[in-house]
């Protein structure tokens, strides 16, 4: 059984069909790329998968469990985490605190524990701090752990978003243009980190990207969208040779 199984997914805003008849099947451990020109509906699909929008038709199954109809917080708890195209960090919290928020559902001490600083509270907080620090280390953010997120340089903000998403302990990680606005060197470093994380944490990744070269370099499978519908899907070599895909990207 596929980890994520999307069938006939669609959403309309008024008369506009933003996404239509999209099918997607991602196996556990895969690195899957979602590409397409601007306005093709890539981010809309992310919003559908994470409960920000409710689909008008179709089904989304994660390990055979329905995701549609659930709230974003519930979907996060069932194992899907995401980053945002336009970075959404907790700006006036420190880098460490940003990651600690993501551990919210993995610690369970009560409000009273927190007020009385019980043993349970102290043990849980220490564990969260340790785990968060570990994730920051993977992303080379340890030195900045006490810096306010807003004061991080752009590239590190992008990394912190991924670190934060990873801290929710997801099975499926959705990355929305993780390399947007980065120079080639930063992009390469980021992609290496993503590969590393994938191996280390054994998670499945669905990635939106503009840069064809980059996508074909690291993704094992691709889905190309255009005007909200599927244009092609399969392994990168074949998909990128597809004349329809070439037309959508380069024009006739």
């Amino acid at each position: 059984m596929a980890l994520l199984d999307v069938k006939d997914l669609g959403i309309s805003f008024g008369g506009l069909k933003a996404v239509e008849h999209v099918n997607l099947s991602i196996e556990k451990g895969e690195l899957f790329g979602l590409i397409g020109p601007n306005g093709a509906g890539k981010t809309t699909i992310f919003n559908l998968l994470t409960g920000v929008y409710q689909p008008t038709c179709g089904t989304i199954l994660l390990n055979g469990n329905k995701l549609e109809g659930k709230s974003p917080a519930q979907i996060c708890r069932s194992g899907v985490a995401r980053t945002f195209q336009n970075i959404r960090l907790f700006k006036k919290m420190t880098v460490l605190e940003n990651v600690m928020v993501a551990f919210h559902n993995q610690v369970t001490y009560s409000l009273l524990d927190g007020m009385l600083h019980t043993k349970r509270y102290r043990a849980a907080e220490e564990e969260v701090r340790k785990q968060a620090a570990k994730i920051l280390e993977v992303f080379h953010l340890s030195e900045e752990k006490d810096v306010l997120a807003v004061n991080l340089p752009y590239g590190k903000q992008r990394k912190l978003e991924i670190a934060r998403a990873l801290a929710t302990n997801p099975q499926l990680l959705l990355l929305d243009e993780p390399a947007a606005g980065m120079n080639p060197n930063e992009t390469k470093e980021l992609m290496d980190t993503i590969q590393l994380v994938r191996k280390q944490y054994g998670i499945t990744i669905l990635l939106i990207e503009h840069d064809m070269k980059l996508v074909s370099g690291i993704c094992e499978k691709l889905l190309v969208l255009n005007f909200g519908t599927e244009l092609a899907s399969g392994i990168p070599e074949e998909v990128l040779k597809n004349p329809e895909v070439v037309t959508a990207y380069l024009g006739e």
Partner: protein
Amino acid sequence: MIEKIREKMTGRNRKLMMIGVMIVGYIACVFLAEGNLLNRQMKSLIVPLGINIILAVSLNITTGFLGELSLGHAGFMAIGAYTGAIFTKYVTWLSPFPAFLIAILLGGVMAAIFGVLIGMPVLRLKGDYLAIVTLAFGEIIRSVINAMDVTGGAKGLSKIPTYTTYTWVYLVIIVTIVVARRLLHSRQGRAIVSIRENTIAAEAMGVQVTRYKILAFAIAAFFAGMAGVLYAHNFSILKPDTFDYNKSIDILVFVVLGGMGSIKGSVIAATVLTILPEVLRSADDLRKLLYALALIVIMVYKSGNGKEMISRLLKKKEAV
């Protein structure tokens, strides 16, 4: 290893320092209240000042931590005040100490319950809409109290036992500040602050936004309710008009002036703005005007524009 020990030490030292500050603060209170330093008029300010600190710190949980503007805080204070006063007035068989302790807790709990009840529909709104609706609820609470028999209606409640002492107020202040501080360092508090910082991202990280908004609202209401009980047992009379929206705005001014999210700021602002009108009493007719003027000056200066404005003014003069 050495670093670890040092870290632990500073942690413990900070705790000791905090306890020290608490004790010194209390001793200062005793001196001010019992000594000859202050005249009677100033002494009578000590309790209201403390109550204002509690109100400011508690509203800061909604406005500063959660980041939602609430204009109905006086409503929760009213619920606590009337609950506590009715309790001590009718439960006369209890001796003062347990009666007052129960009254304070009861007032807080009742206010918190209303915080949850009002929060459930209201907190689905955001920003300006939320502010307006909290304002409306604050007024509704006052009107309902005005219309009820048990509260004495518009005439108010009188002959409430005057149990409130500066010691009680001081204790409640300590509890309020400790809870507010510890909240910030708990997972619940982090969830609340993350909602302020970015609601969509908070939700995507698994934070149940509505639940934590209501939690913040309820905790703030709880302490406002306790402040209300202290207020009721200070003057021995209660009138619904005390808790109109002007009171809510006054509390909000403490919070904004002290800095959103800053507990220390709330304490200082509440202190300064409670004493200021009394100091200005000698100015008589000009009092309100001077108070407003002082507010504007402090606000402009605090926002960081003050220095800029002054330097710009000076520059203009030079240019001429």
